[in-house]
């Protein structure tokens, strides 16, 4: 039965080459677009994770704190746990760092006095957002603390951007997936209608519904598979062009590639199943 079904699927493909190619092309474009958005998402995720690695809590201190007070605050922060390192920057050191930029140095000189506070750069061992949040909130209430920052707004904004891009990608992908599904249904129905006489005779001489259906299902599966391969191939081509110009770009991880490929095959199968159902009534 499988041999017969494969032979017939191959014949169907040859008979309606153009329609099959259109369906495969449409599916490969859907997968390509979803792949591009996934690629953007994966790489943006990498940027965020890299950022998170560099995120430190910056604790700005009140002016005119004594050395003992500064030491006591440092000890208190260290005793909170999860602290890898605390680096102290005095007012003078902060001014010196910022004055490397000539324009800023000029403005600061105009002000007359040093407006910059002393600060602690607190590096955590576990850099998860909840940990950062937790520790930052607690430090805020210490005596002698002017302000606490840890780049939470930047990370939040990046996460929003990723979510937005992923949503667009998924939305577009679904839309194009529906179009691909319609094209496959149209293609298979065209082939079935050209073979209606044969199908009818097969039904009347005792072919089972599964036997009649199998070549068309295989054809849909093959179209889906080829569409998935083409789409992923084009995506890899785009990725290859990108890494020639930019370093460090990640390709899609295996689970996402498998998901896209599997999705393509599934669309092919579902399309052919839907299109053949009406004609298989015994």
């Amino acid at each position, binding site marked *: *039965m499988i041999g*017969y079904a494969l032979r017939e699927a191959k014949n169907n493909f040859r008979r309606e080459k153009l329609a099959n190619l259109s369906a495969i092309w449409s599916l490969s474009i859907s997968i390509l677009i979803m792949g591009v958005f996934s690629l953007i998402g994966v790489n943006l995720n990498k940027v965020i994770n890299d950022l998170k690695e560099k995120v430190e809590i910056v604790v700005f201190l009140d002016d005119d704190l004594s050395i003992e007070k500064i030491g006591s605050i440092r000890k208190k922060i260290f005793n909170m746990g999860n602290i890898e390192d605390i680096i102290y920057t005095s007012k003078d050191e902060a001014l010196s760092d910022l004055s490397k930029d000539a324009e800023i140095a000029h403005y600061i000189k105009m002000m007359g006095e040093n407006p910059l506070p002393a600060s602690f750069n607190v590096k955590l061992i576990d850099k998860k957002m909840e940990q950062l949040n937790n520790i930052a909130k607690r430090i805020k209430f210490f005596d002698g603390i002017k302000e606490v920052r840890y780049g939470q707004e930047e990370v939040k904004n990046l996460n929003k951007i990723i979510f937005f891009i992923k949503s667009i990608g998924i939305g577009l992908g679904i839309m194009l997936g529906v179009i691909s599904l319609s094209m496959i249904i149209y293609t298979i129905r065209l082939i079935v209608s050209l073979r209606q*006489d*044969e199908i*009818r*005779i*097969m*039904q*009347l*001489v*005792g*072919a*089972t*519904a599964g*036997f009649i259906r199998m070549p068309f299902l295989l054809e849909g599966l093959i179209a889906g598979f080829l569409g998935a391969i083409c789409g992923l191939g084009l995506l890899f081509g785009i990725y290859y062009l990108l890494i020639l110009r930019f370093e460090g770009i990640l390709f899609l991880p295996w689970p996402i590639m498998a998901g896209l490929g599997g999705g393509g095959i599934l669309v092919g199968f579902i399309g052919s199943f839907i299109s053949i159902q009406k004609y298989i009534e*015994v």
Partner: protein
Amino acid sequence: MIRFEHVCKYYFAQTSDLEKNINALVDINVVIKRGGFFVLFGPNGAGKTTFLKLITCQERPSAGKIFWGEQDLSKIKRKHIPFLRRKIGMIFQDFKLLYKKTIFENIAFVLSAIDLPKEVVFDRVCEALNKVDLIRKKNLYPYQLSHGERQKLCIARALVNNPEIILADEPMANLDMETQEELIQILSKTNEEGVTVVMATNNKKTDFNNISYQSLKLVGGKSKES
């Protein structure tokens, strides 16, 4: 072998101002004996094709029961219908030949459709073509045959799967007397080998060559057994 008990078949039709049932068959009671030769007479529209369709389960009776042996065909499950049809050899009124396939392929197609292996197919097809004397033309296409030869091809296709019963729907239509006799002989020989033959015809003058047959006359869907 096949028993019709108070079988009715009507189709629902909607005309411009009425909804009504069209009675294709009304209260048909008949027994077709195993190994018998059964002829269904009637003008066009009498219900002959509907009668045959009920046997192949292309239609279900609106009322009554049809039995094949002990099996009630009106209750047969859809998934079992293909296996019932493998016991039947159909000869269609409109031939239903595949014009892009050769004569050999038209018949082999039937055996491929029920997933028989290639080795079996070749021998069976040749045997069937021999019975109807078309073996020398096996590589021709249906359009290269005469009307009578196409009908013989249909008979060969019906016989290839060694059916228990042949259902022939107007096999003599548009044939000259000589070809009709030839076909009757083929069907008769098949019947002698134990295959039940059910033949629908609108031609009362068909010469059955001293074949002993059972008949039923249909007029407007109603029966007159003789």
